[in-house]
């Protein structure tokens, strides 16, 4: 019984992590049709920025809540700056080219940014565990849950609601939805697709960095954390459907729960879980779970 509860909580925590990482990617992909490999670098920069902020702020007797805020802001600011520079500086030059070319550009940028991380922060590890400890824990029988993990779940839920609200009820959000649905028609209606692109990419970068920022206290912030995140994010986006925030959420929850079940019950298959789930979903829904019917172009 306790195991079932543990699977549920672990699954939701992992789902929260996946969702926060994937939401930025699905937006960029849905709007710009770009497989942004550099998303891993946004995550890494967010994590490093957050870890640096934590290192500077905590252990000085300042209020803990301020630390949480600073951590998030540090990560998001880095995401904003890098996203903006990348979009204006490099991506501008390759819009309109073959999508695969654009993917390669993002991959080249990712390689460069990985080494920029070394140049700025060096090859060491940056622990940022103070927020994790400060959040305390909650006991449920023999199982002890971390307050930070529960907070993460809450954070992801809030983010999902905010995204849904923004997409449906703000002007920019509706523009975004329209461009995701059909870029050409949107442009024909006079929507400035270029500005939408810039804003979307920067937003995606900020969200990616945010993912790194909130995960920093849980993981060891070191070289290479961006690499694995890319595949996880892509898998969740593929499961959920391109450009769909609900899809990213549902996909994250499915993968999270399956993985937690694997760790508790059948640890041998933990490595396969995310790929198995993705393959299974794609077999039955070739375009992901939440995609609109696409008109056939003749």
């Amino acid at each position, binding site marked *: 019984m306790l195991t079932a509860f543990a699977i549920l909580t672990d699954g939701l925590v992992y789902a929260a992590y996946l969702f926060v990482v994937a939401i930025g990617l699905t937006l960029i992909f849905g709007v710009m049709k770009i497989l942004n490999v550099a998303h891993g670098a946004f995550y890494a920069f967010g994590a490093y920025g957050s870890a640096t902020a934590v290192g500077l702020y905590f252990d000085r007797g300042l209020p803990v809540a301020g630390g949480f805020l600073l951590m998030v802001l540090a990560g998001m600011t880095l995401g904003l700056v890098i996203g903006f520079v990348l979009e204006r500086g490099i991506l501008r030059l390759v819009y309109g080219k073959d999508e695969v070319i654009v993917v*390669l550009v993002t991959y080249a940028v990712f390689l460069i940014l990985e080494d920029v991380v070394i140049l700025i922060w060096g090859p060491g590890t940056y622990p940022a565990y103070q927020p994790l400890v400060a959040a305390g824990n909650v006991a449920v029988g023999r199982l002890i849950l971390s307050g930070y993990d529960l907070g993460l779940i809450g954070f992801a839920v809030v983010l999902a609601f905010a995204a849904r609200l923004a997409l449906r009820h703000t002007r920019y959000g509706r523009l975004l939805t329209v461009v995701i649905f059909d870029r050409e028609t949107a442009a024909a209606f006079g929507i400035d697709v270029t500005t939408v692109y810039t804003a979307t990419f920067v937003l995606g970068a900020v969200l990616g960095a945010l993912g790194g920022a909130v995960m920093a206290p849980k993981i060891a912030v070191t070289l290479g954390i961006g690499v694995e995140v890319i595949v996880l994010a892509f898998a969740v986006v593929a499961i959920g459907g391109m450009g769909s925030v609900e899809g990213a959420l549902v996909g994250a929850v499915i993968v999270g729960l399956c993985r937690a079940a694997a760790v508790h019950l059948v640890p041998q298959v933990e490595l396969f879980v995310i790929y198995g789930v*993705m393959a299974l979903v794609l077999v039955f829904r070739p375009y992901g779970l939440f995609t609109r019917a696409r008109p056939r172009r*003749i």
Partner: protein
Amino acid sequence: MAGRANLVGALAFVLVAAIAPSLPAWLISLATIAFANALVVLGLVVLWRAGLVSFGQALYYAIGAYSAALLWRLLGVTDAAVMVVGGGAAAALVAFLVGLLLARYREIFFAMLSLAVSMILYGALVKTEALGSTDGFNVAPATFLGHTPAGQARNLWLFWLTLGTCAVAALVVGGYFRSIAGALAVPVRDNELRVEFLGVSADRLIHAKLTLAGALGGVGGALAALAVGHVDPNMAYWTTSGGFVFVTILAGASSVAAAFVGSLLFELVRSYAVDILPGTWQIILGSVLLLTILFLPDGIGSVLSRRARPPEAQAR
């Protein structure tokens, strides 16, 4: 025209094979691996012309490599030609079976599904301690039709075998591109529906391309296993696939030779980057890639071909 291209291509291969013994040993070893990888890239070019980018070619690369290695480990086979053919055949079979599912998918879903399949193989190999898990295992030195060269002579023979295999592959793929099935790749990429109206099954066509690309990947993997002398599950990992895609786009889809030149150049740039800046060589690699894309958007192949690819109708 095709005949002349083939003749000059064959001459180029013969020339390189002839000067090989006088080239420095490290360059021969590096070039062997580069050309083995170029075969995988060639398979990716076949797919890319139909508009598909596979992030799972490492699956066939690993199958080719492990098949060749297991032929030695289980059956004691050391003949290089047998191992290469065995690796290619095993990979082609798997490509055929996997293609039954994969041929229906397009765009990112094709990419992600192919990635998923290769990662499942990776997981299986990591779990198999009998095969050394992530450490893999070594492959015995190759023999060539009973001839057992040693030392640098063996590396030369392997290089010649690789060159020969590449020449055959270039011929076959070049011929395929000129065939109807090959020529239909671009129309499939541009507008599948119209191709179907012509009475051609796009899925079947793509299935055939997947099998061909898989076979090429397997042959490349078997050659790499012999050249490196070692196989490990990392050969099936998605970053290995990513590396192949990287070179494919660098090389461009317009000429067969570009796959080989691009692969060799990539290997050389990587090696010198590590040599010059051991701590931050990724910056060099990324910058070279970026500059190539910005100034040579159709890949190195566009330098080699006089006419670049015609701009496609962007009907998306």
